[in-house]
């Protein structure tokens, strides 16, 4: 069986005044049919650009992109795929049902019952005749998912499907995505919600600056553990001294949390904390999370590291003010 998605040395270059910029650089992805695939990366990593190439709305500079065995952009595969963009917008004068009918007509589907059934499926049965302008963000997202099921797609592209939703809407959308896999659909999710991705995805790819920096099954990628050390009364400069490529440190009012791979010796860190006047609260070993993998994968990048550092410094600054 052919791959649901495959890219080979995919490159997308944009011209700028300072010269060409590679937004996607030699990207090689393989997505198996029937799996939920998480596509992760920091902002500006090239995720949305890659999805747009796979949908055929923009074109690659070099390389190949295949969707369901055909070249990306082939109109024939558009009958078998669906896309839910990040923060989708719908024509506000229309009701949920009218939106469904509009998108259905783009497939040549004129089946009112199907439109209603899909809205029922995403728990919008009682609201289908209300204008979309009166819908909450979660409801709009659910309309988006309902419209993406109109053609009973083999492959769904979901860009930040749970972004900005409240916890209940979050769980509802997550459960729906799991149902899609049970129905044999392939789901390609681009998301920053790492806990969601970790719960529902079979495989992930992490990209940074347009390149894949990690790709594989979650259980294989999350081998190894971490140690989390918490201490009180730590001076701010201790965080700077402890922080390195593998060591993630956050400090807030003298309470410091140090997160290191389990290959590090925690006693050594504990001694440094105590020597600086800090008091150890706990040393807890835990399994590796997707967040750890993500940070490891992008932490070599100065921009990503700088952002994390900035966030901590900003937080400290706000508290001092």
């Amino acid at each position: 069986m052919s791959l649901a998605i495959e890219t080979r040395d995919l490159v997308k270059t944009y011209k700028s005044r300072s010269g060409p910029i590679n937004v996607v650089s030699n990207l090689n992805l393989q997505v198996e049919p029937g799996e939920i695939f998480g596509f992760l990366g920091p902002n500006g990593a090239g995720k949305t650009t890659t999805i747009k190439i796979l949908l055929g709305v923009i074109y690659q500079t070099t390389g190949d992109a295949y969707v369901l065995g055909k070249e990306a952009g082939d109109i024939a595969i558009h009958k078998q795929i669906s896309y839910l963009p990040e923060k989708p917008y719908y024509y506000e004068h229309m009701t949920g049902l009218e939106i469904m009918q509009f998108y259905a007509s783009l497939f040549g589907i004129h089946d009112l019952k199907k439109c209603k059934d899909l809205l029922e499926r995403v728990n919008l049965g009682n609201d289908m005749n209300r204008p979309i302008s009166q819908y909450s963000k979660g409801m709009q997202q659910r309309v988006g998912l309902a419209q993406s099921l109109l053609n009973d797609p083999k492959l769904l592209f979901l860009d930040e499907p749970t972004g900005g939703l409240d916890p209940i809407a979050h769980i509802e959308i997550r459960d729906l995505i799991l149902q899609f896999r049970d129905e044999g659909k392939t789901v390609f999710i681009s998301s920053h919600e790492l806990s969601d991705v970790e719960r529902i995805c079979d495989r992930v790819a992490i990209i940074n600056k347009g390149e894949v920096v990690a790709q594989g099954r979650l259980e294989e990628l999350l081998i190894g553990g971490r140690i989390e050390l918490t201490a009180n009364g730590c001076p701010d400069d201790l965080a700077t001294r402890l922080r390195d490529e593998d060591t993630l440190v956050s400090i807030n009012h003298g309470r410091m949390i140090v997160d290191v791979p389990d290959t590090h010796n925690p006693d050594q860190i504990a001694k440094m904390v105590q020597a600086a006047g800090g008091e150890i609260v706990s040393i807890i070993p835990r399994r590796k999370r997707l967040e750890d993998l993500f940070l490891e994968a992008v932490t070599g990048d100065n921009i990503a590291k700088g952002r994390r550092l900035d966030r901590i410094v900003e937080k400290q600054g706000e508290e001092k003010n």
Partner: protein
Amino acid sequence: MGVILAIAKTTLGEAVRRRVLLVILLVGVLFLAIAPALEALSPRQELTVLRALTLGIIQLTSAVIAVVLTVYLIPNEIERRTIYTILSKPVRRWQFLIGKYLGAVGALGLMMLLMTTIMLLVFLIMRKVEGTAEIASLAKVPFAFFIQMSLLAAVSVFFSTFASPIVNFFLSGGVYLVGTVFDSFFDVLSKNSQLNPAVKGMASIVHVIVPNFQSFNVQNPAINQLQFIQSEGMFYLGLGVYAFTYISILLIAGIVVFEYREV
């Protein structure tokens, strides 16, 4: 065809609810309603002035609506990301563009129909028209304007495939101005044998490329009843063919640009 109609219907539905267009339309309608009160300004030729004024209001309001409506057609879809959900369905770009254009022209037609109806009602109430022949003579003018505005909308849709709304507004407005006011000027320049060949060539190019919007200004027979159009049927048919040809060329050019555009 179903895809084009679905996009056209949605575009029309959205256009007739756009506040900026409704405000422009409201201003036009208000002027149409109060126009008869201005007749005191020229008692001698009040009917001529009134007809010229009301038809002028319809033309100007329609032109502004046509441009404002179409300059945002494509950029809005990109900005709001609706274009991605549409183009990721089995919809070809040309279908999307034609659907958007037809929806815009439909909305424009409805708005112009409203203005024309109000104009005729005001004229009937004020007893400024008598008999169906006179009403028909007046109604033909907005009809010709509608074809003119459909052509202007095609110009604007073409520019919207690559230009920002502000740039497009001035480009389309400029083309309309040249094709309406300066068309005969460029025509004279292009035929002037004493002119520098380069200037003459440029004038010829402008005269040929820019649609002759002036030819749709058929209000004179309706304003001045001593004037008439010879072979009226053939004249309107010719206008229709001329507009259809230009609209087709502009839309095909727009489709070619849009096909390769990264959205």
